[in-house]
C-alpha cells in the first residue's frame, strides 16, 4: 500500500507543479515517454542481465559460492562472535555474505533470514547488537559485479558498462565501514 501513496503522490505533485509552473504539456508527453522508456530499458539490458545471471549460475554450479563462504568464516567470527559459535548459523551467515557478494539476491535472503532467526532465538523480540550488525551488513550492498546497473549502462550506450566497478567497490566498502562504525557507537550510547 505504501507504493500506492508514493506513486499517486509523485503523479499528483507533477500535475500540480506542472500547472503552477506552466509545464503541463511537457508533463503529459513525459508520461508517455516514461512508459516507453521503461520497455526500451528492459529490452536494452536484457542481454547483459541474462548473460551475467547465466555466469553466476555457472559459478554456483562450480562450487565457487562454497569456496567463497569458507573464506569469510574467520572475518564473520570476529564481527559476530556469538552467532559464529554455532556452526549452522555461521554456515548460513557466510553463505549469505558470499551470495550477496556475487549478486545472488535470491540465494542470499533465505540464508540471511535463517541466520537471523537462529540469532534471534531467546532475545524476546529485541534486536541484539549482533542482529543490528547483520542488518547493516545486508543493507549496505557489497557486490562484486553490480550486473543490473551495468545492464542499464549498457542499454544506454555506455562505452564500457563495467568501468564503474572500482568506484562501486570503493563506495560499498566505505558505506559498510561507516554503517558498522555507527552500529558500534550506537551500541554504547543507545538507551533501552
Amino acid at each position, binding site marked *: 500500500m505504501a*507504493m500506492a501513496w508514493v*506513486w499517486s503522490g*509523485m503523479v499528483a505533485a*507533477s*500535475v500540480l*507543479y506542472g500547472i503552477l*509552473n506552466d509545464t503541463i504539456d511537457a508533463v503529459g508527453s*513525459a*508520461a508517455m*515517454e*516514461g*512508459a516507453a*522508456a*521503461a520497455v526500451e*530499458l*528492459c529490452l536494452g539490458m*536484457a542481454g547483459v542481465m541474462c548473460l551475467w*545471471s*547465466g*555466469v*553466476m*549460475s*555457472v559459478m554456483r*554450479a*562450480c562450487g*565457487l559460492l562454497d569456496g567463497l563462504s569458507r573464506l569469510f568464516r574467520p572475518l564473520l567470527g570476529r564481527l559476530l562472535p556469538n552467532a559464529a559459535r554455532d556452526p549452522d548459523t555461521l554456515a548460513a551467515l557466510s553463505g549469505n555474505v558470499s551470495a550477496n557478494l556475487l549478486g545472488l539476491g535470491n540465494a542470499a*535472503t533465505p540464508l*540471511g*533470514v535463517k541466520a537471523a532467526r537462529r540469532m*534471534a532465538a531467546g532475545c524476546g*523480540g529485541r*534486536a541484539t547488537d549482533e542482529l*543490528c550488525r547483520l*542488518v*547493516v551488513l*545486508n*543493507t549496505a*550492498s557489497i557486490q562484486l559485479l*553490480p550486473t543490473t*546497473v551495468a545492464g*542499464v*549502462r549498457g542499454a*544506454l550506450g*555506455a562505452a*564500457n*558498462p*563495467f*568501468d*564503474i566497478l*572500482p*568506484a562501486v567497490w*570503493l*563506495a560499498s566498502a*566505505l*558505506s559498510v565501514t*561507516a*554503517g558498522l562504525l555507527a*552500529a558500534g557507537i*550506537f551500541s554504547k550510547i*543507545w538507551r533501552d
Partner: protein
Amino acid sequence: MDYSAYLVPVLLAFVALFGLGRRVNVYDALTQGAREGLDILAGILPSLVGLLTAVYMLRASGAMDLLGSLLAPVLARLGIPPETVGLLFVRPVSGSGALAIGSELMAAYGPDSYIGRVAAVMLGSTETTFYTIAVYFGSAGIRKTRYAIPAALLADLAGFMSAAFAVRLLFA
C-alpha cells in the same frame, strides 16, 4: 592500457574453464541462469513502467529540480550532486523506484557523464534498506529494532557521499 577492459572477457573464460575442470555442464548452467535473468526482468518491467512514468512526469514538471535546488546547499556540503536528490530519498524505500530514477538520470545526462556515473555507483553500492530490515526482522520476530534503522540509513548516506567521491577520484 585500461585494465578494466580485461575484466569481462577474462572472467567469462575463467568461469568456463574452471567449470569444465570441475566437470560441470557449463553451457547448461549458463542457459539455465540466463532464463532466471529473464524472470528477473519480467518481474521488474511492470513496476518500471509505472515508476518511470511518474519519474519522467516529475522531472518534466520541474518539481525534481525545485527539490534539488532547495537542498543544494546541504548536498554541496556533503559532496553529493543535487541532481541526484530524488535517488537519495527513493533508494532506501523502493528498489525499482531507485532503478527508475537512476536510469532516467543516466539517460538524461549520459551514462558516461559525471552525474550518470554517480547515479550508477549510488545504485550499485546501496540497498533497499527498509525492505531488507522488514524482511530480516519480520521473519526473526524482532519488534524492537533499536538502532538498526539509523545505523543502516547512516551507511546509506555514507554510500551516497562515497559514490560521488569515488567517481571524482577515479574518473577525474
